[in-house]
Structure formats: structure tokens, C-alpha cells
């Protein structure tokens, strides 16, 4: 009697877990791309760096982030605050601190490199830090910002990537098992056209403005002299400040936080390729009023591809999409209550000792030990008592002067 019930329980457990198994991810990656160059596109670099900071704060390590910046705003000669990139006019937060890793910089940010990065078709000489080493259980957050238009994004002012290319790249990734789910965010003019061509499963996309509409910058800083952040990214980041590693806020909460009068353009969402629900289904789906509420003017409307099938997702007992699914490095935590792990304090002798002069001749001293091959006692005493050298020299110098001044050296009359 016990054995069949146990086996049933195990079967039930496996079934249940298998329902979630397809949407379980084990690691998070992020690809943040700023594709425009020159000083007046400071805000695009600030966008990418702001997103980079948020992504790091929420738990994705540098080894899992590919940051592509097409130009160097921090060390630009026109930057009055050299070495710093700020995203708000008060310059409260320096996004370019001392702990950032830019993987693709300057002219390395090209369409070819971007697509090769996504698909993984890189030559063997490309280092690990420039590879997207994802597997089939990785959730990837891909963020693009720059100048764009209807179904294209401009790279470096001389080439463009089209929405078709990205869609094909994503399909190659799907077929190669290089992602579990992708969250695609794009902040350019007419951004929503960028995700309109996707056809691979598991992609959730959002953009900053509909086709035919521009995205606007948010604020200027009059000391830096240019606009420092884009509107859409600013409000997204502002919302993300409420998110921490353990929050249970859902994607629906993020999308419904879009405030069109503030952002200045109509963001869009595409979730028809995404099989998980964006928010809790009961009692009222938070996304039910998406794009129809106040602020969304009638002519623009709220673009949401997949609105119709959203209701159908709830029936399939999938977990809703949390923001931390794409931004955090943590899925579930097992707290181990064992007391075996103990913290040992280092004793003083294990620390790097400060150089105490008389007893430890380190290799940096002026008296280089390898040169004193002949271990004569005089040189050894000189080494062990460093104050002997200058005092002996001083005495000899004084003796020389006394000799000369007293006339003993000038023998001739």
C-alpha cells in the first residue's frame, strides 16, 4: 500500500515539475547594445549604461553581460566630467564608475558582430568575454538603443540592421537551443517595428514607440550640454528601481506602468510568441486595460500583439512571467540549515604583514639581495639594519669634508 502511493506521489511530482520544466531557466544573460556614436548621442550610451547598472544590481554578473557601446562618452574630449556618464541633470549617479566591463567598444559594435554574437558563429580567436555562451535554459534580456526607423536600427552611422535579420538570428538561436526565453526591449524611433518580424517561440518584446512615431529624450543637462537620457528608458529604469532580487513583480506590472504622457510616445508589447502569462490571471488581469486606459490617446492606442491569446495562457498553469526571470540571477533559493559551515576569522599571521623594517628584507628594498652574492657579513648587517647605510654614508661624507678642510689632503705646499 505504501509503495504504490509513494510511486503515485512521485509521478504526480514529476508531472507537476515537468509542467514548469519547460519554462524553468537556470541562468540569465543580458545583451545591451548602444549602436550610435558621437557625442550628441550621449543619451544612448547613458541608456545602455543605466540598463547595465540595473541589470548588475539585480544580479546578473559581468561574465553574463555583453555590453556593446559604440562610442566612449566618458572619455570623450568634450566631456566636462571626464570619466563619468550621468543619466540625470543633477548628476547624482555616475553610471561609469570603476567597475564596468565593456565587451564591445567603439568600432567593434557592428551589425556583423552583433548578429555573430547572437548566433554564436564566432571565430575561434574571439575571447570568452565577447561570446554569448548561453544554453537552452538561459533567459536572455536583449536591449537595443540608438537611432532607428521602420524595421531598421542604425549602427555607427554607416550601416543598419533590419528587423528581419534579427528575427532570423533569433530563429537560429532557437534552432540551436541557445535560449530558453528572450526579453527584447528596444528604445529607438519607431521601435515597435523592430519586433514585428519575429517568428520564434519564447520571445517577449517591448518597444518605445509605434511605427511612424519618434521616441524622445527626457532631459538635458546644461553642464554636459547634451540630452542625458531617453524618456522611455528613463521611466523603465525608474520603475526598475522598485524591483529587487526577490520581488515578485510581474511583466504585466512593468508594462502597465507605462505612462504615455510622460514618456511622450506609445510603447508597445508583443507577447504572442511568449507562452507564459504576463501577469496573474485572477481576479482582473492587470494587462486587461493595457493600451486602453487614460493617457493612451485614441489614435495611437496601445499596441499589444498577443492581446487576444493572453487570456488563454492562464489556463495552462504556467507560472507568470516575473521581472526577475529576466533580470535576476536567482530562481529559487534553498536555505541550508546546516551548521557545518563555520566562518573562520583569519589570524593576524595570515594577513599580509606591513613591512617592518629591521627584520624582514623584502625584495623591494634598495639593497637587492640577489646582488649580494658574496654573503659577507658587512653587507648582511647593512641589509638587516637599513638605517646603517645613510648614517655610515653621512659619517664618511663628513670625514671627507673634514679631511679636505683641515688641509691634510693637500700635501704640497
Amino acid at each position, binding site marked *: 500500500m505504501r509503495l504504490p502511493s509513494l510511486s503515485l506521489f512521485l509521478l504526480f511530482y514529476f508531472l507537476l515539475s515537468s509542467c514548469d520544466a519547460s519554462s524553468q531557466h537556470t541562468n540569465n544573460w543580458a545583451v545591451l547594445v548602444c549602436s550610435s556614436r558621437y557625442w550628441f548621442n550621449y543619451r544612448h550610451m547613458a541608456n545602455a549604461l543605466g540598463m547595465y547598472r540595473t541589470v548588475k544590481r539585480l544580479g546578473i554578473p559581468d561574465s553574463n553581460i555583453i555590453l556593446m557601446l559604440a562610442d566612449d562618452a566618458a572619455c570623450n574630449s568634450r566631456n566636462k566630467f571626464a570619466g563619468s556618464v550621468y543619466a540625470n541633470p543633477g548628476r547624482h549617479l555616475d553610471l561609469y564608475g570603476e567597475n564596468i566591463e565593456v565587451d564591445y567598444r567603439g568600432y567593434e559594435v557592428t551589425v556583423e558582430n552583433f548578429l555573430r554574437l547572437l548566433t554564436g558563429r564566432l571565430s575561434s580567436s574571439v575571447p570568452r568575454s565577447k561570446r554569448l555562451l548561453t544554453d537552452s535554459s538561459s533567459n536572455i534580456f536583449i536591449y537595443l538603443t540608438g537611432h532607428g526607423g521602420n524595421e531598421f536600427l542604425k549602427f555607427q552611422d554607416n550601416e543598419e540592421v533590419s528587423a528581419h535579420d534579427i528575427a532570423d538570428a533569433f530563429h537560429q538561436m532557437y534552432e540551436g537551443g541557445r535560449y530558453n526565453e528572450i526579453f527584447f526591449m528596444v528604445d529607438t524611433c519607431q521601435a515597435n517595428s523592430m519586433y514585428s518580424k519575429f517568428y520564434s517561440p519564447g520571445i517577449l518584446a517591448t518597444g518605445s514607440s509605434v511605427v511612424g512615431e519618434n521616441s524622445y529624450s527626457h532631459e538635458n543637462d546644461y553642464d554636459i550640454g547634451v540630452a542625458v537620457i531617453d524618456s522611455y528608458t528613463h521611466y523603465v529604469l525608474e520603475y526598475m528601481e522598485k524591483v529587487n532580487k526577490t520581488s515578485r513583480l510581474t511583466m504585466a506590472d512593468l508594462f502597465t506602468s507605462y505612462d504615455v504622457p510622460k514618456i511622450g510616445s506609445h510603447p508597445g508589447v508583443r507577447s504572442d510568441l511568449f507562452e507564459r502569462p504576463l501577469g496573474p490571471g485572477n481576479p482582473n488581469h492587470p494587462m486587461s486595460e493595457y493600451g486602453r486606459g487614460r493617457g493612451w490617446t485614441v489614435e495611437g492606442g496601445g499596441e499589444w500583439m498577443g492581446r487576444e491569446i493572453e487570456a488563454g495562457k492562464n489556463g495552462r498553469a504556467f507560472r507568470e512571467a516575473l521581472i526577475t526571470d529576466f533580470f535576476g540571477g536567482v530562481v529559487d533559493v534553498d536555505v541550508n540549515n546546516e551548521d557545518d559551515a563555520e566562518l573562520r576569522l583569519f589570524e593576524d599571521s595570515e594577513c599580509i604583514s606591513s*613591512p617592518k*623594517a629591521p627584520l624582514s628584507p*623584502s625584495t*623591494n*628594498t*634598495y*639593497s*637587492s639581495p640577489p*646582488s649580494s652574492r658574496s654573503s659577507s657579513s658587512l653587507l648582511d648587517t*647593512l641589509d638587516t639594519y*637599513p*638605517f646603517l*647605510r*645613510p*648614517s*655610515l*654614508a*653621512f659619517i*664618511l*661624507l663628513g670625514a*671627507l*669634508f673634514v679631511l*679636505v*678642510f*683641515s*688641509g691634510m*689632503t*693637500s700635501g*704640497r*705646499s
Partner: protein
Amino acid sequence: MHWLSCRKTITLCIVFRVLFALGLDFYLSPPTSYAYYADNGDKVVEFINTGPGLLSASSPLTLYANLKESLWLYQRGMDPYGSGIGQVGVSPLYLAFSFFPTIAESGPLKTQLLSKLFGIFLWTAPDAFSAWFLVRIWKARASSRTSTNSSSSSITFVLPLIYLLSPYVILSSLARSTSVWENAILLGAIAWACESESEFKTKPKLNNSNSKSKSKSLLFLALRVHLSLDALILLPPLILILLGSPESRLAEPGPFALYVAKRRSVKKQPEEKLPNEPAENHLRSTILRAALNVLFEFMVYWTALALISTLIVGHWRWMSTTWGTSLSLPSMTPNPGLWWYFFTEMFDHFRPFFLVVFNVHLLMYVAPICIKFQHDPLYALFILVGILATFKSYPTLSDHGLFIAFWGIFPEVYPYLRHPFPTTLVLIHSALLQPLFAHLWLSHGTGNANFYYASTLVGACAGGMAIVDAVWAGLRIALERHGKRELKFVEGEEREIVTQQ
């Protein structure tokens, strides 16, 4: 008396400068700009090095910050010469004083004031010695003169003033550049050489001359060469002074050997030829032997100081960082000299060639000037000091200050200068423009290096004009007196020599 007025002048000037330095320190001490410097001396040094003395008060060889850094590293057991290529280091002899307690940085106000005073005094006292040595040089030179008794007292009053109140020297000492010590040591060497007694000189004319002066002079010259290798070009004229006499014989041109022969109780007319060849050769070999003796003594002192330096530091690498900097120019810090701009612009392929050219340029003046002015080696030394100030690798304001002060020792050439007024004007022109352009370039960011280098070139032009004028005037005297004598012999009446001036 003469001595008393000289000493009073020096004391007054030193007191004035110490008060000035203290006043400047207190003026700069309100916490607005320099509050984060703990060390007392740094405020004034920073002010000078970023203000009036920008780029010119100290060179990488003489910088106060370099000295402090080396001392600090040495006191903590680290190697001040170990950081590799491109490093300019101070002589290890400074490090011998490293076990003295450093200037008190904090503590009760009285200690701070005392240590501040001590620091200021440490960098003003060498100038007192320099002025005193200048007066002694003058006295040694003028001791045989008969007609200058009345004016000599005014000269001994004016000469220390020229040196101590010269803005070049004041700026250098306020910036705590080690060149104040170098100048004092060099002037001491020259003063003792002038006062020294050798077998080729007549009876001692000064009341304090002694046979030790030669050794003292050579030791001090060895010390000076240790501190900065460029002064090596002053060794040949110094040897000539030691063998000869510093008195003014610009009017008596002739070979050195002739002068020596005259002094060795062999009375000869200048026009008569020596009767027997073996005596002349014997004379020459005597002079050569004496010169070699002097050189040998110099080398002994030099080697002794080198060994002491090696003992201080423990290895031989200090030579490449102290002496090697003058030769190989590792640091391209802008300075009022001619080298740095050249070397920033050329390709590395030509660097050794141009290093040789610039160094040979410095060396090539030694032999001609010493040969031409062998009858008056102090004048040769004076001209070589001018050449050093203009053409050396890392000149500073104090080199020019020394050259200007030296002009006061040779008043006999003033009537024969061809263009003193334009030279002075060009010098003032460059002295005013140099800090201005340095500021425009580095502080305001509106000018560029070419402005500064142009003003430096104007300064070099002034130096060149001064040197050329000095050479002209020195030889003009000889032409006048010698020519007059010759003409008198030939024609029996005095005729005036007319030249281009």
C-alpha cells in the same frame, strides 16, 4: 670696511627674504585653496610651481617634490631608483640626510612655526653663501688692481644685492629647487679656486688664502658634478684657474705657458721668444704634470663621492637615473631650455643621433673658449656658465640667475660691449613672456606648446647674444691694449683702435 658692508648687506637681504617667504606662506595659508596640504612648505612651493615659476623654477632634476619622494621612499626601505625607464632621480648624496626628522607636519603651533622657519632658512642660507662666495671671487680677481679701491666697496655692496634680490634666485629658492644648493656649491668651488695658491702663482695676496683652498675647490666641484653632470664642462677652466690666477688679464692675451713662464721668476718681454727649446718643453711638461695632478685629485674626490653614493643606495643603478638623465633625456618635461621640444617632435629612430648632437654641442665650446681665453680662465669660466645656462638639458631660472650675477664680476668689459641694451631688452622680453605663455598653455588651455617654446627661444637668443657680446668684449680689450702697445712701438704715438662698435 669692505667686509663689514658686504656682510651687512647679505644679512639684511637674507632677513628680508626669510620674512618675505614667511609672509607668502601666511598669505597662502587661509584654507581656501591649499588646505589639504599637510606639509608647511608645500603651499609656497605649489604656488610658485604653478604660478610665476611655472615650468621654469624647477626642472625634473631639481624638483622639490622629487627630493621629497626619494627621501620618503628611502626612509621606508624602498628603492628610489627602481621604477624603471623614464625616471629622473636625485643624487643619492641627498639621501644621506634621510635620518634627520622630517619637517613637523602637525603639532602645536610653535613647533609648526619653528619647522616652517627651519625649512625656509634651509633654502635661503645657500644663497647667503653664494653671495659671499661671489664677493670673494671679486676680491680675488680685483686684488691686483690699483685703481679700483674706491669703487670696490660699492661693488661689494652691489654684488650680493644683485644675486640675493634677483627674481630668478628668489623664485628658485621659494620653489625649494635644489639648484640653490648647486649654485652655492659651484660658487664655493670657484671662490676657493680663485683664492688658492699653487706653485705657479705669486705670493699670496689675500689674508685668508691657504693651501687647502685647492682641495676644497676640487671637492666642491666634484660634489657639484655629482649633483648634476652638466657642470663637468666647467672643470677645464677651473683647472686653469687653479694653475693660474683669477686676476683680470683680459688685456694680456697670450699662451698660458707664457704666463707661467713669466711667473716663475724668469723675466721675459712678451715679444721675445724663448731662447732655448728644452726650457720651453720643460715648461710645458711642468704645466702638464701640474694639471694632471689637479685632475687626479679631482678624480679621487669624485670617486670617493661615487663610492659613498653607492654605499647609500646599495647598487649602481643610481648613475643612470641621475647622470644619465642629462645625457639621455628620459623626461620630456617642458623647461626653459631648447632640448625638450626637439625631442618631442622627432622620430625615435633619430633620437640617439640628436642626443649625441646636443651633448656634443654642449661639449664643443669648452676647448675653443679655454684656448682662446687661456690668459684669463675666470672669464672662460664665466662664458661657459653662460653656455651652460643656455644650452644645457634641463635649465632652470637659477642657471640664468647665476649667469647674470657673474656679469657683476667683470665690470671692465662693460665699455666694450656691443649691444648691451638690446640684450637686456630681449632678456626682459623673454622673462616676462615665458611664465605668461606657460600659463596660457597649461592653465588656461588657450595657447599651445609653440607659444611657450617661442618664448624660450627668445630667452636662448638673449643668452646667445649675451655670450657673444661677452666674448667680443673680452677680446676687444685685448685688441685695444695689446694693439696700443704694438702701435706705440711701431709708430711712436698713440693711435686709437677703431672697430665696428
